[in-house]
C-alpha cells in the first residue's frame, strides 16, 4: 500500500487580496493517517478545501486518487468533514444520518455503525442543535463515515473533545487506515502529531516539514515534536 493518494504541485491559492498558499508541493501516501499540523491561520482549511475541490485555486494542480481534485467521479470516493460541523441543527441525529445516507446512495442501516464509531449511539433521537459542540462535530464525522470513502479528509475533528474520546477517535482513524482508507487529519495542537503515521507541518501558507514523526525527530534532534516544529521553523527563517 505505498501508492500515492494525493499529489499537489505548485499549488497557489489567493483569498481576498492575500496569497494564502504559495506554491505547495507534496504527496500523501494511500492507506495511512497523515496529519496536517500548523498554527491557526496558516492555511490548513484552505489546503483541505483545495483537496476536496471546493476552493478556487490560482495556479498548480491537485490530484486526488488519480484524478483532478473535485472531479465528478471523486464525489462518492472522498469524504469531507468541515471544521465547523456541517449537519442540520434542526433535525435529529437519526434524520441527519438518514438524509446523508440517501445522498451518498448507501443503505440507511449504516447509520447505527457510524454512530457507534463516534460513541453517540445513545443520542440517535436528539435534535442536533441541542447537542454540545463536540457532539455535533462527531455527528458531522459520522455522516462522512457512512459513505465508507477511500479518502477521508477531516478538518480539526478532535477539537474540544476530552482525552478519552480523542484517543478513541484516533483508534478509529487507524482502524480505517488499516483497512485501506487514506486519512488526512488537520490539527493546530502539536500533541496530536505523534498519533499520525506521517506529518505535514505548515506555517504561513508553506509546508515546512514532511515526513514521519521519527524522521522529524532525527532531523531536528528534538525529542518533543513541538520542539521539533520550532526548530524547523527557525531553520527555515534563518
Amino acid at each position, binding site marked *: 500500500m505505498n501508492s500515492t493518494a494525493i499529489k499537489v504541485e505548485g499549488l497557489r491559492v489567493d*483569498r*481576498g487580496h492575500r496569497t494564502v498558499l504559495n506554491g505547495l508541493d507534496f504527496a500523501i501516501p494511500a492507506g495511512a493517517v497523515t496529519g496536517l499540523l500548523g498554527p491557526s491561520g496558516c492555511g490548513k482549511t484552505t489546503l483541505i478545501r483545495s483537496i*476536496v*475541490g*471546493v*476552493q*478556487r485555486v490560482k495556479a498548480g494542480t491537485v490530484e486526488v486518487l488519480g484524478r483532478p481534485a*473535485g472531479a465528478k467521479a471523486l*464525489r*462518492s470516493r*472522498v469524504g*469531507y468533514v*468541515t471544521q*465547523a*460541523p*456541517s*449537519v*442540520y*441543527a*434542526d*433535525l435529529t441525529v437519526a*434524520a441527519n444520518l*438518514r*438524509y*446523508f445516507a*440517501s*445522498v*451518498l*446512495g448507501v443503505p440507511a442501516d449504516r447509520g447505527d455503525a457510524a454512530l457507534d464509531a463516534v460513541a453517540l449511539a445513545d443520542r440517535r433521537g436528539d*435534535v442536533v442543535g441541542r447537542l454540545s459542540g463536540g457532539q455535533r462535530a462527531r455527528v458531522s464525522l459520522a455522516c462522512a463515515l457512512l*459513505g465508507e470513502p477511500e479518502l477521508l479528509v477531516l478538518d480539526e475533528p478532535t477539537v474540544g473533545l476530552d482525552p478519552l474520546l480523542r484517543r478513541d477517535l484516533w483508534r478509529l482513524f487507524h482502524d480505517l487506515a488499516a483497512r485501506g482508507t487514506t486519512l488526512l487529519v488537520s490539527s493546530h495542537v502539536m500533541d496530536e502529531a505523534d498519533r499520525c503515521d506521517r506529518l505535514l507541518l505548515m506555517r504561513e501558507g508553506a509546508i515546512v516539514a514532511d515526513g514521519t514523526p521519527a524522521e522529524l525527530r532525527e532531523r531536528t534532534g528534538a525529542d518533543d515534536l513541538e520542539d521539533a516544529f520550532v526548530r524547523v521553523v527557525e531553520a527555515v527563517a534563518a
Partner: protein
Amino acid sequence: MNARVTLATARRVLAQLHGDHRTVALLLIVPCVLMALLYWVFDGDERVFGRVGLMLLGVFPFVTMFLVTSVAMLRERTSGTLERLLTTPLAKLDLLLGYALAFGVAALVQAALASALALGPLGLDPAGSVTLVLTLAVANAVLGMALGLLVSAFAQSEFQAVQFLPAFVLPQLLLCGLIAPRDQMAGALEAISTVLPMTYAVDGMNQLARTSELSGDLLVDLLVVVGAAAAALALGAGTLRRRTA
C-alpha cells in the same frame, strides 16, 4: 439528477419545517387570519371581497414561500451544509427540485386551508373551479420559492435576506394590479408591471374570478408564472458554485 436524492431532499426540508412548529403555525394560520380580516375590512361587501380576496389567495403563497426559502437557503449556505453537499454525488438540480417539491407541498396545504375558509364561511364564489385556484396558488408558491432561492445568493446574512422582501416583493405587490388596476396606472408603471412575474400570478386569479373555463389568458398567466419559476431556478442553479473563493 437522481429521483432518490431529490425526494430525500424534499423529505429533509419538510422534516426541518415540521420540526419548527411556530413557523408551520404562522405559515398556515396567518393567511386565514388575514383573509378573515380582509372580509371584515370590506364589511361583507361581496363584490370587492370577491375581487381582492381571490387575488390575495394568489399573493400569500408567493410572499411566504419567498421569505421562508430565502432564509432556509441562506442557512444552508452559511452553515456549511451546502459546501458539504456539493462535495457529494448530489446534483444541483436534486437540491433545487427537492426544495421546490417540499415548499410546493407546504404551499398546497396553506392554499387549501385559506381557500377552504374563503370559499366556505366567507362566501367567496369564483367562477373558476377550486382545482384551478389551487393550481395557480401552488404555481405562485413555486415562483416565490424560486425567486427566494435566487436572491439568497446575494445575501450574506439573515438580516439582508429579510430585507429582500420589501426590496423585491413590495414593488411587485404595488404594481401587480392588487392595489390599483393596471390599466389605470401611468404608462411607464404599466410597462414595468408587465415584466414582473407577480403581475401574472394576480392576473390569473382575476381571470378565475370572472370566467369558469380555462381561458387562453389564464393559460398565458400560468405559463408565465411557471416559466419565470423555471428561469429563476436555472439562474439559482448558477449561483450554487462548487468552487468558491
